């Protein structure tokens, strides 16, 4: 239950960070909030010899704009994102997910970059990021690259980020008029809870305020990775927003879900809940898109 010994590095720039990561390879781990890493180290599940802290690098803790995109800094905490005024419209999904993570103490430490790189199937910030079409911005020895988030998650705790790479940001489309988000989470208790099922939804309406221009639904805890529901998206695009369309999308989402049974709940129940929560999250997103 004690932390194993390690060296701590505090690079002052992304370049320096990459150098340290390159030096130590798989012996190095990046630390931001430490809410997962330190717990796993105390339990002996991980024993990196080198921890690389990012607090010395400027610019990783803000929301910036870039060519019609928002760039969310990876060191932003769940608390900061939950309270951010810049995440309006569909982007509100991220704020809603961040607000439901852990407890106030955990939210003050846990970062969005950590949440994404830890890649848990029920991660409260990953599921919303998927409906926003977020891209992971990675810096590495071979230069920067971008990866859509649904290609970034490979399995529980596994991502496409290589050991020498660093997540420098998450790029989202700029909030658009007539868009809104919803987030639904089912757990046993109201805080400090890993979702049994969580669902994020985002809707972009046509100027008529009725027709769905685009909609995305993402599901958590029902597959090895947080996942988008293509069936739900197809069921919604071009449809008139409302209960009927949402019910069809919910059914499609339940079909797309690939839950398993474990000690937290059965696959059958999770599938049922996906349907209910999808319908509710879409209703919430629609209301938000209408500015209500």
């Amino acid at each position, binding site marked *: 239950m004690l932390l194993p010994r390690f060296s701590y590095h505090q690079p002052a720039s992304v370049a320096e960070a990459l150098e340290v990561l390159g030096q130590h390879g798989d012996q190095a781990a990046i630390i931001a909030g430490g809410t997962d890493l330190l717990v796993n180290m105390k339990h002996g599940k991980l024993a990196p010899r080198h921890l690389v802290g990012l607090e010395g690098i400027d610019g990783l803790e803000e929301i910036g704009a870039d060519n019609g995109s928002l760039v969310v800094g990876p060191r932003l905490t769940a608390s900061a994102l939950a309270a951010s005024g810049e995440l309006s419209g569909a982007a509100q999904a991220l704020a809603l997910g961040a607000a439901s993570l852990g407890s106030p103490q955990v939210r003050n430490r846990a970062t969005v970059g950590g949440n994404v790189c830890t890649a848990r199937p029920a991660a409260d910030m990953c599921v919303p990021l998927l409906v926003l079409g977020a891209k992971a911005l990675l810096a590495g020895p071979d230069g920067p690259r971008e990866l859509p988030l649904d290609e970034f998650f490979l399995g529980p705790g596994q991502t496409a980020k290589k050991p020498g790479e660093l997540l420098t940001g998450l790029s989202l489309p700029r909030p658009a008029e007539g868009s809104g988000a919803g987030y639904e989470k089912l757990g*046993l208790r109201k805080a*400090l809870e890993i979702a049994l099922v969580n669902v994020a939804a985002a809707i972009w309406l046509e100027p008529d305020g009725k027709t769905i221009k685009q909609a995305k639904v993402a599901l958590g805890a029902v597959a090895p990775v947080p996942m988008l529901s293509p069936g739900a998206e197809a069921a919604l695009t071009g449809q008139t927003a409302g209960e009927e369309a949402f019910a069809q999308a919910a059914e499609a989402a339940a079909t797309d879900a690939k839950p398993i049974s474990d000690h937290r709940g059965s696959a059958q129940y999770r599938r049922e809940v996906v349907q209910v929560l999808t319908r509710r999250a879409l209703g919430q997103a629609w209301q938000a898109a209408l500015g209500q």
Partner: protein
Amino acid sequence: MGGDYTVVGSRARRLDGPEKVTGKAVYLDDMQFKGMLHGAILQSPHAHARIKSIDTSAAEALPGVKAVLTAGNVPDTKYGVSPARYDENILAIDRVRYVGDEVAAVAAVDLETAHQALELIKVEYEPLPFVLDIDQATAEGAPQLHQEYLGNLTAEVHQEFGEVARGFAESDLIRTDTFVNKRQDGGFIEPPRSVAVHDLSGNLTLYSSTQVPHYVQRTIAMLTGLSVGKVRVVKPYVGGGFGPKASASPCDILSSLLSMKTGRPVKIAMSREQVFLHCRARHQFKHVMKTGYTKDGIIKALEHTCYLEGGAYSSFGIATVYYAGSLLAAPYRLPHMKYDGYRVYTNKPACGAQRGHGGVAARACFEQQMDLVAEELGMDPIELRLKNIMETGDVSCNDLSMSSLGMKECLEAVQGGSDWNAKKGKLPPGKGIGMAAGFFVSGAGYPIYRSETFHCTVTIKVQEDGGTVLVKTAAAEIGQGSDTTMAMIAAEAIGIPLEAVRLVSGDTDYGIDLGAYSSRTTLMTGHATREAGEQVKEMILTALAGELGVERERLDIKDGVVEIKGEAVDFGPLRTKYLKEHRGWGGMPSGDKLTFTEAARMAYLKLGTIVGTGKYKPPVLGGKFKGAAVGTSPAYGCSAQVAEVTVDLETGQVTVDNITDAHDCGQAINLTSVEAQMEGSVSMGLGEAMFEEVKFDDQGRVLNPSLGEYHIPTVLDMPRMRCIVVESGEPNGPFGAKEVGEGAIMPTIPAILNAVHDATGVTITELPITPERVLMALKQKKRDE
């Protein structure tokens, strides 16, 4: 209700409040000793295995390691909780019986070295077949845990009171229902830990995060061979106990032995994971109850069978299996009751006592069934209960005597307080209201070991300056507020303000106190404290009567001032003497009344140090049948609760919106503490009802050994609460007081279950009430319709 009290019944600020909220309170982890070593315990990774060999040589050779203990170099004395079932070894001898069984212990210069040393101990195990549930454990040819207790039975109980067959013959409605709860964790904030200091005079002082310094002292003396007088157990501030800390822990025992071996202080602390592995918390109970009622709703007979899944050792299990039966005999008149109880060994951590010991799941089953009976009879659940409740003076079929019982007052209080009549049967789908009642002992009638010992002794010394008194009690303040309660009782008994009382507690050097369990402290230690206080008051007033030349009967002390009945008495010389002693001091007594301070100083000058002593043990209680002692108590608290819930009919998720809670505590000593106990009980009951379950994999390993994955309620999960304190005035209690610590948990689970039934029409008979369980039941109901 109650008398004309000055301190008792008030909302006094807790004595420990300022230290705790400022973080200055000293808990065990804050304690440092010169040369202190750190201990660690090696635990079995197997649910059941033979130990073929242990090689400690590499661990002993590691620099910084000062001692390594295994079964080979510690006494083979068996111990446990009840002397009738001492079935534990200090360290495993030849065999481990659960994942977590203690195999070896080390002491080293720091914790890191101690952990390294554990990794260097080579244990060769031969895995054995194991049993993880009651069915496996009781199957023919099942692997046996203890050769002394074959059939994997720790204990079985067979009791019949009255004639059950006759009771059923007189019944019009007979229902049989089953109920299953889940193994719980205590969920206290502070995991068990200890520091043992064996000094050069051969005395052992053990600082321990315990509920029961006295029992720990006895166990340590028994296992170390030291005389009881040479073992001192001191309890610093403790972060909760709830039952699992009511016996000596491996930290206590192994730190003591390691300190004796090394001659240095040794600290051992459990991690949160080890708390789950050690357990000693609530058993899993399976109840089957067949109950007969007349068509008018009068209970005639109960035939009850209970199986307890107990884990690898007995711990409190014998008492638990008795409590699971005996506590159903009240608070309703039940003329005929049959009980068959079985406490079964399994290859899992041992279960023990937890808040509402043995009675919580039984109460849930009985009260849930009562609501189903009410439904069948077309009767309001409160009306059904009012028809059956016992009253003050009633004695149960198993000889439990209700010296006070405000059950009717509690039921009426929650009926009115929740606006029951306007809501019951009138809420929309998905909204429900339910209620339940319960009762509990106010202190176990007998100690855990057979003895005529006093259950507590208290000393009150009047400080020689006369201004303050010092209460010394070995009672265990573990967060429940007993320090403040005892100080208040002392102040009331002497007639002085609370600020004039200092108190020290939780140290076996201060006397006998059986500890914080069975909701005993307020009544029992309260009696002893009151007696000591009254003795002090008597000594001072007798001395004062002599000094002033008046009859003793004319004198009294109230709120720190001496009251003299009848014509005025000149106490001028006494005051002058006091003022002369304090020439140049501020804040001296003035006015036309003699102060307690002056009177007490005068008494000291006459008699020397004034010391009062108090003691308490209950009178002989209970019947003559086997197991009659379990359930006896000098008094019983009782309670009723109404729960209001919202059920999400699409997901099955239940939210408890409101709980109206009435509890008869006899007389509140500290009203705020009484309410806090009620709220704490509801929180714990709500957790057990809604979330809590220690889960195991198929190898007997705990799946959720952390407070992240084992869900206890957060503040956001708590309902709005309305607490109504009922004061029936208990003749056997100090100032009329009795328990609130455990009885208040009894109605919570069934009240929530009954509210869920009201909201949905489904009956959940297995805890916890997870969304999945509720949704599946809703679907089943739809299919049945």
